[in-house]
């Protein structure tokens, strides 16, 4: 792939001294939607945290739009254009939906060249219309689906070039999953590159262009999502009953 927006080469990450991912290679093209699929504990979240500078990267290179991220302080990464929705949402409780959307604009808006804060925030409400009349609600009072939308909306508020979504569909009712998938497709259609971590392989084929399969910290397969989703060994792997044989 020429000139990818995100390129991981030989990345090994660790948590509390224990190696989680080994020699991981992954790329996301400009405007592309890519899935990182694997069981719980396979290393998806740690990979995302490594990209965001929140987990120890022991070796390898993580380049975003030509900039090496591993040598940067973590708080500089959002300003480059990487939005992050963590697996457990990590909303700023005690604060309103609106405050959660505005905070990233205040912290990274200058680097992102954002001049009109209200315009950006209203753009997020346009995408997640369900949140428009909840803007003054404190986030701990939201439903699970709404909370996921706030987490994604907060990541979008820096007007990112790359959006990292860690298990955005997990634990949600089917009709909300369908709704959120449409939102993700809309985001991607706007030209924002998306990397989605997902443990349910059946969730991603209609959202992403390519998937990587991660198992025990290593990429074990990659390719067309619909083809891989039909592979019996992938399905078994996702159900936790199989060993991937390649």
């Amino acid at each position, binding site marked *: 792939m020429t000139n990818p927006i995100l390129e991981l080469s030989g990345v090994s990450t660790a948590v509390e001294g224990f190696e989680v991912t080994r020699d991981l290679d992954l790329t996301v093209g400009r405007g592309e939607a890519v899935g990182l699929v694997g069981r719980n504990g396979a290393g998806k979240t740690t990979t995302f945290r490594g990209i965001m500078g929140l987990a120890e990267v022991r070796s390898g290179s993580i380049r975003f739009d030509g900039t090496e991220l591993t040598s940067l302080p973590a708080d500089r990464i*959002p300003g480059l254009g990487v939005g992050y929705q963590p697996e457990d949402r990590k909303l700023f409780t005690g604060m309103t939906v609106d405050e959660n959307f505005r905070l990233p604009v205040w912290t990274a808006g200058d680097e992102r060249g954002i001049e009109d804060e209200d315009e950006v925030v209203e753009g997020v409400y346009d995408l997640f219309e369900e949140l428009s009349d909840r803007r003054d609600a404190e986030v701990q009072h939201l439903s699970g689906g709404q909370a996921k939308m706030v987490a994604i909306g907060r990541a979008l508020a820096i007007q990112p070039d790359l959006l990292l979504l860690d298990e955005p569909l997990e634990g949600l009712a089917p009709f909300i999953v369908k709704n959120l998938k449409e939102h993700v497709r809309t985001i991607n259609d706007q030209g924002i590159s998306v990397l989605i971590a997902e443990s349910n392989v059946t969730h991603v084929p209609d959202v992403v262009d390519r998937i990587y399969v991660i198992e025990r910290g290593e990429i074990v397969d990659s390719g067309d999502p619909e083809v891989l989703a039909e592979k019996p060994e992938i399905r078994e792997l996702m159900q936790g009953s199989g060993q991937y044989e390649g």
Partner: protein
Amino acid sequence: MVALENVAIHTLNGVQYGFVLFLIASGLTIILGILDVLNLAHGELFALGAYVTSSLVGALVGAAFTPDSGLGFLLVVLAGSALAAAVLVPVGLFLEAVLLRPIYERDEVYQLVLTFALLLVIKDAIKYVWGPKPVRLEGVYSGINALATVSIAGRTFPTYKLLIIVVGAAVTVGLFYFFERTKTGRIVRATAIDREMATAIGVDVDRTFTLVFAMGAFFAGFAGAMALPPTQAHLEMGADPLVLSFVVIVIGGLGSLRGAFVGALLVGVLTRWATWLYPAMELAAPFAIMAVVLLVKPEGLFGSWGERA
């Protein structure tokens, strides 16, 4: 029969005492709630504020005002106190950036040992600069006593105490406005709620922590500065405010600014009532209030940032 005017005047005394406690405790609880550091040297920052005030206000009053110049005199005392507190800001910046930052990831025992060591170092520094004897601002002291009192419910009330209430109320409003309404205040709150997620949206957590610690040092110094003029600065003056600040923030809920405000006023008013009605209870009153609150609500009256501070 308890006269109503006595109730009013002792309540007002309690409110004034409560605001002094809040000024001290606000810094302690902000630092605890956001940096997760229990600063044992906080009382010495209070003392340092008082000592710096003794030099600054003494010089200002001596140079420009006579103690009988009324409102102008009070404004000079207030400006001197704010200046003295401002001196605490670089002290706070240094303590956080150089000494505390390297040990955040370590066990809390390291923080306690370090801040206790700071308590001793600051006390020795005060002794070195101002000497071991208490410092009284004679001119300011007599000036404050010479100020006309105000009449409240048919009783007289010292003007300086009224000034402390007004300033305390203004600081309270300012602090809540800062944390609830300003961008920087809300970024600080977000950092307190989840420092890793704050980093992930672009917050420079190191810089935020330095700002917060300097702010805490400022308010400790300001409390010392405001509390000094009617009394005297002495080497042991940091101990009681530290202990009472702990009582206040335990009552209010560790790390809660709202809790510190309610806790300080509760301790202030009830302690003054106890001193009036049962003088033997003066020292025990704050701890008795704390014990009752802990029995009813062990986590304190309010939650920390993120739990609705």
